[in-house]
Structure formats: C-alpha cells, structure tokens
C-alpha cells in the first residue's frame, strides 16, 4: 500500500513535469531548425543580392548613330596606309554625327555634355571598322556604338530621377536628348561582349574581366604544377615511407599548423622571400602562383593522405607478396587507387586558391592593369582582386560589374566543386 502510494506520487510528479519538459523539447528543436533556416536565409540573401545587382551588367546600352566617314577627317591627303588610319580623329566623326542629330545644341558647354552621352570607346570601334575595311571612307553608315556608363545606368533604371538635378549624374538636358533618342529607337540594350573580351579600364562601359580571368588562369597553372606533385609526393612519403620518429612528427605538426596560418601571412612570406630576396618582379602570376601553392599545399597533403589511408592494406600486401618493391607497390597499385581522392582534394584546394585575395594584395597584384596577360611573367590581376578593385570604385556602373564578376567567379567555383563531387561519386570505391 505504502509502496503503491509512493509509486503514484512519483508518477504524478513525472506527469506534472512532462508538459514543461515536452515544451522545452519543442523549443529546443525549433531553435535548431531556426538556426539552419537562418543559415539558409543568409545563403539565399547573399545570392539574391549579388544576382539582382549584377545581372544587368551582362547587357550594355548601345546608341545608333549615323556616321559619315568623312574623308577630310580620316585621310585628308588621300593616303590610306595604316599609320594615317590609326591616327585619324574618329572622335570627331562621332561628334559631327551628334551635332547633326541635335542641331539645336550650339552652346560650347552643352555640346561637351552632349558628346558625353557616347563612350570614349566608340571612337576605337570606328577606327577598327575603318582599319579592317578602308573602303568605308566616304560612305555613310548607321553604327551602334557603346553609350556612356551614366546613360547605361539611366536606361537600366539605376538612377533615381526623383533626386534634384544637382545630385544626379544625368542632368535634365541629357534626359531630354536621351528621350529623343529613345523615341527614334536609337537606344538599345544588347549582350555585353566587352565584359568578356576586354581588360580593366577606368571607364566602366569599356572594362571587362578577360585580363583577370587570364591572370587567374596563369596563377592557378603555376599553383597546380607546383602544389599537386609536391603535395602528392609529401603525402606518399608521410603515409607510406616515413619512419615513426621525431622528424616525421615535426613535419606533421608543421603541415597542420600551416593549414591554419592566416592567408595574409603567406602574402608577407611571398613579399619577403620571392620579391625582396629572389628579386622576382611584382604583380606577376608566377609569384602569385608560388604563394598560393605554398598556401594550398597543406590542403592537398591532408586530402591525399586521407585518400592513401582509404586504400586497404591487403592491396599492398598482395603486391609485396608477389615480389614488388615497396616503391613499385605504391606507384603501380596504391597511387592509381588513391588518385581520384587526391584529385578531389586538389580541385578543392584550387578552388580555394582561385578565391584567395589577401596574399595577392601583398605581392602587388592590385595594380591597375589594362592589358590581358600573355604569360606567367606579365603583370596581371586575378579575378578576386579585380572584384576588390572594382568594389572600391565610386561609379554606380562598377557596382553591377563587381556583382557580375562575382557571379562569374562563383560560377567557376561551383563548377570546380561539382567536378570534385562528381569525381568522388564516380570513382569512390568501398572496400
């Protein structure tokens, strides 16, 4: 009786607390789910911001002009050799065409503003057209030329017209001309090829990422040619040959620590060793690749060791058993089986290197470079540094270009990671 009462009392106490405990349980669970949803929200918010800011950069505003290829201005003496053609005043042709279209503009200052609607790059387009086809001289043609970045921003709706005129980059008279052009169907948005075929420029409408992509390519090439063989060799040594002693321990501790050293410190190493000590030039992909190779080495070594570890010992024993030397065992049997894992690790390391910025700032890869680099010894920028440089530029048009460059960078990174996942899925073996 007494025992049963005791039991009932206990059950009552448990029952009393149960609601509270279940409520706590639910709250805890919601907290966890909330944390994950918050994380997912951050991801989607980040992507939405970048994409909504950047997708317009893949289009560029063009203006249709009626250009008269005036022989007087291009080749006044009638000579048409390349020297004369390349030096002619093509900007003048555009100005003439603009004057013709807006004859009411006579004021000197207004004229200057009017010419400002067209990008300075338009003259080069005309030059290229004439250089490749000198028979154009003397003819009249309708030409689509690149508009200035302010016009571009207006057409894309990035300029707030409610602001007072003095706060706007586009003034009221310019607005009038642009409306007039629009009514005549002389303004059009087209796919922005310049963005993929040009190097950097101070003019947003003429700037592109080709130089940065080429720089990134050369940098990664150097990084890969150094980091992959050395990383795999180091992993093979540590996993298969290294005796268990203090020296090996020291190497392992070092690799683990290097993996966590801030990337900017690697930049200082590059500055002090490669540039100041060995006298290599600044801002070239060679030095950038070397620094990034040192930085990605721990990643590759750790991934390669994991891949080697996953090859079962029976493979090694079988090879040794039929008389292969230890080196033959490794090179003929273990390495081929571990290679997919090593490649996966290497691709992830390369993706990391592609996105890295800070160490490259230290070795001078922040210079303003217009030319597309042609070799590992040409000064160049890389994609993330280009993003950093553009993010610092005040023009509104560079904001969308920065976002577009980020989209390109992320596309590269995502495809590299997908490749790594695919490799792992395809060649993963369960023993």
């Amino acid at each position, binding site marked *: 009786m007494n025992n049963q009462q005791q039991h009932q009392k206990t059950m009552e106490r*448990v029952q009393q607390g149960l609601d509270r*405990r279940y409520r*706590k*349980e639910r709250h*805890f*669970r919601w907290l*966890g*789910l*909330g*944390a*994950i949803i*918050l*994380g*997912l929200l*951050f*991801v989607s918010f*980040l992507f939405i*911001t*970048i994409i909504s800011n950047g997708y317009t950069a893949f289009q560029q505003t063009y203006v249709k002009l009626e250009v008269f290829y005036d022989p007087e201005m291009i080749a006044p003496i009638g000579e048409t050799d390349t020297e004369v053609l390349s030096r002619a005043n093509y900007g003048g042709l555009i100005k003439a065409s603009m004057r013709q279209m807006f004859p009411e503009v006579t004021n000197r200052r207004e004229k200057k503003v009017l010419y400002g609607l067209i990008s300075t790059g338009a003259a080069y387009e005309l030059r290229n057209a004439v250089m490749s086809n000198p028979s154009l001289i003397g003819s009249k043609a309708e030409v689509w030329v690149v508009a200035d970045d302010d016009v571009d921003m207006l057409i894309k709706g990035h300029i707030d017209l409610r602001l007072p005129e003095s706060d706007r980059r586009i003034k009221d008279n310019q607005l009038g001309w642009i409306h007039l052009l629009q009514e005549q169907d002389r303004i059009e948005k087209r796919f922005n090829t310049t963005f993929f075929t040009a190097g950097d420029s101070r003019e947003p409408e003429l700037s592109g990422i080709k130089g940065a992509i080429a720089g990134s390519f050369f940098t990664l090439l150097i990084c890969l040619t150094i980091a992959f063989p*050395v990383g795999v*060799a*180091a992993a093979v*040594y540590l996993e298969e*040959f*290294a005796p268990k002693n203090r020296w090996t321990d*020291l*190497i392992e501790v*070092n690799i683990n*620590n*290097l993996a*966590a*050293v*801030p990337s*900017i*410190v690697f930049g*200082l*190493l590059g*500055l*002090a060793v490669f540039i100041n000590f060995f*006298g290599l030039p600044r801002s070239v992909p060679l030095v950038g690749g070397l620094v990034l190779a040192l930085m990605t080495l721990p990643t590759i*070594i750790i991934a390669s060791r994991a891949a080697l570890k996953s090859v079962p010992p029976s493979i090694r024993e079988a090879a040794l058993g039929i008389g292969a*030397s230890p*080196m033959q065992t490794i090179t003929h049997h273990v390495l081929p089986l571990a290679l997919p894992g090593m490649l996966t690790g290497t691709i992830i390391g390369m*993706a990391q290197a*592609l*996105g890295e*910025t*800070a160490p490259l*700032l*230290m070795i*001078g890869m922040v210079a303003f470079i217009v030319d597309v680099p042609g070799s590992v010894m040409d000064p160049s920028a890389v994609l993330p540094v280009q*993003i*950093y440089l553009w*993010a610092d530029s005040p023009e509104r048009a560079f*904001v969308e270009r920065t976002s577009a460059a*980020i989209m390109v*960078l*992320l596309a590269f*990174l*995502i495809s590299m990671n997908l490749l790594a996942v695919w490799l792992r899925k395809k060649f993963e073996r369960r023993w």
Partner: protein
Amino acid sequence: MHTSTLIILLLGLMSLAYYFGRKRSLSIVGGKIRDLHSLPSYYGMQTAMWCGIPALILLSLWISFEETVVTGIVVESLPQELQSLPPERLDLVLNDVRNLSKGDIVSSTVDQTMQQAADHYSSLMDISHMALFVVALSVAILAGLWARRTITREQRARNRVEKAINFFLLSSSTLAIFTTIGIVLSVLFESMRFFQQIPVTEFLFGLEWSPQTAIRPDQVGSSGVFGSVPLFAGTMLITLIAMIVAVPIGLMSAIYMAEYAGKRFRTLAKPVLEVLAGIPTVVYGFFAALTVAPFFREMGTNIGLTVSSESALAAGVVMGIMIIPFVSSLSDDVINAVPQAMRDGAYGLGATRSETIRNVIIPAALPGIVGGVLLAVSRAIGETMIVVMAAGLSANLSANPLEAVTTVTVQIVTLLVGDQEFDSAKTLAAFALALVLFVITLALNMIALHIVRKYREQYE
C-alpha cells in the same frame, strides 16, 4: 619564353634518353629480360634522369645568377663617376639601363653612356642566353650518352631510380618545414629591424596608432606612433561579434543536423550551408560593404542611433556568417564522435532528446566544441578581406560596435599596398603586426588541437 623552349627541349631529350636507355639494356642481354638486374624501363628511367636532372639544375642555377653576374660586368664597364655613386643611386641607374635595354620607359634622360651601357647589357644578356642554351643541351646530351654507355647487365638500375624518387618524396615533405621557417624568418627579421626603431613595449602597450611618418624632415604631419593596442582591441571586438553570430547558429544547426534532421533534410540542407564555406572572402567583403553596412546604418537612424558606415557590427556579422559552416562542421564531427551508448543510456532513463543533448552529449563533446570554437576564433582574427572592405582605417580605441574600428590585418594591408620605401618604420610595422598575428593564431591552433586530441583519446 626562351626558358620554356629550353625546358620543352630538355623534356624531349629526356624521353629520347628513356627510349635509348631501354633499348640499350635490352640489346645487352639480347632480349632476355630475366638476365637483367632490373626491368628495362628502369634502365630507361635512369638514363632519362641522368640526361635531365643535371641540365635542369644547371638551368635553375644559371637563371638565378645570370642577372647578378651580367649586372656586375656592366657596372665595371661604367665610367668611374657612375661607379662611385652610393648603392641606392647606382641601383636606380642600373634599373634605367635594364629598362632601356627592354625598350621600356626610363625615368632619367638618356645620354651616351646610358645607351652604351644598355647596349652592353642586352648584348651580354643575349650571349648568356645563347651560352645557357648550348651548355644546358650539351650537358644533357653528354650525361645521357654517358649513362647509356655505362649500362651493364648487373647494374642496379631499379634501386637507383627508387632512391632518386625516395629523395624527391622526402624533400617534398620537408617543404612544409621550410615554409614555416621562411614565414618565421621573413617576419622576424623585418620585425627586429622595426623594433630597433620603435621599442617593443611601446609597440605592444601603446594606446595610439598613427603610422603616417613624415617623408621629409620639414614636412608637417605626425611623426608616427606605433601603439598596437587599438588594433588588437578592434580585432577582438569584430571577432567577438563574429563569434556571437557564428557559435550559436553553427552549434545549433550542427545539433539539429546530427540529432533531429531526417536523412533527406540533411542531404539537402548540409551542402547548401557548406556553400557558405566555399564563397571567397572578397565576396563577403563586397556584401558587407554594399548591403549589410548600409542596412545597419538605416536601421540605426530609424531608432535614433548614429551608426558609422564602416561599423564593427557590419564587418563582425558578415564574418560570423562566413564562420558558421566552419563551427557547424567541426561541432558536427565531435557530436557524431560521442558514442551511441551514451545517448541510449540517457534515453533509457527517460530523458527527452533535448535533455540528452544538453546534459549528456554537449558535456561529452564540450572539449571538441571548445577546440573548434578556438580554431574559428583564430580564423576570424586572421581574416582579411571582409575587414579591409567593410571596417574602418583609422585606429579607434572603442568597445562600441556601432563605431568604426580597424584591425591588425587591415593595417597590414594598408601599410604594404602601394609604393613605399621598404625600410621605413611604416612598412616594417606591418611585419611586426604579422609576427604578433602569426604567434597568436599559432598559439590558438596549438591549444585547440591539444584540446581536441586530448578529448578524442577518451572514447577510442
């Protein structure tokens, strides 16, 4: 371009050497492989190594000393008054000579002697290139031929080749040590030069940071004060904000993933969260500067607070977002390492899941979680791009997250980007900051790894 042609030629020669070495070994024994000590391909490899490696070593030595030797010869041929210039001036002159010979822009006017020196320089360089070409190729051919001649049936080719490969493997693995030594030395040397100008105590305990030094003695401007406390305070503030964001979110999502989420949810949500880890930091920096900082400022003005447009809050929150996957994947590992038996024991006693997690799993996984958080702190301290783009530049000793503060990494970048004299206190200060940064992150890593390792031994 010229060097790469030479390297390609050498690689071609190496494959030829492989072919001939292999053929030679076969012809010695008349095609009966079992009479050879090693397989024929090892004789081929041995010949190829003899052909390629000495030539490649020669090539790299030549390239590293070419410039110095040629410059030395050019200096000797310069007129006496140029030779007796102080070393810095002489360097400038030599730089001009080099640029002149490449056809680049020259800083000073070109006179007769300069032009002569430049011609001399480029002709010497041409001679050196030609000589390298001839010498390297003949070394390769001679060594290859010699190796081919010495092939005998008893030669232990496999052992030699394997020894060479083993040497390569060993030296690759020591590169990590050399990198560490390189980092320590390069940072330490410049820091020592810095501490000769500025006392260590002033650097470590000074409360004011203003690295602008006057270039000319008569220039108006601050004389440069290098007290690093505001920088470290700023770093700590931003790191603290990042941790306040990252640790709860990262830990809770790891717990949910490990203990509650179904398999389908996990396979879907986990990769998406891991995307955050793969995004380059420059993208986070852009995001912080363009979106998050203005957002906080707007919000501040709406509730009557003045928020700086480069507030520590914006940089810290974005850095926290960056670190979430780092915290969550590390905690995921340790939570999964807690043995199932401990969970089952708690469930058997009637505990709910959350009670099990809070009273059993977290305490058991705590050392691992603490280790992971320490690693995350060390990452946040060393993070550069987010703070360069979103945090302030001027040192400000403040604990208010709405104000602009600067960090150690921001200062390293601003001190070293751009053209400066390399031995001014301003640039050397960057190396001193990097030294402290390196020591702090190293110490944090050591502690974290120690904690994690100690914990792991308990259950294995």
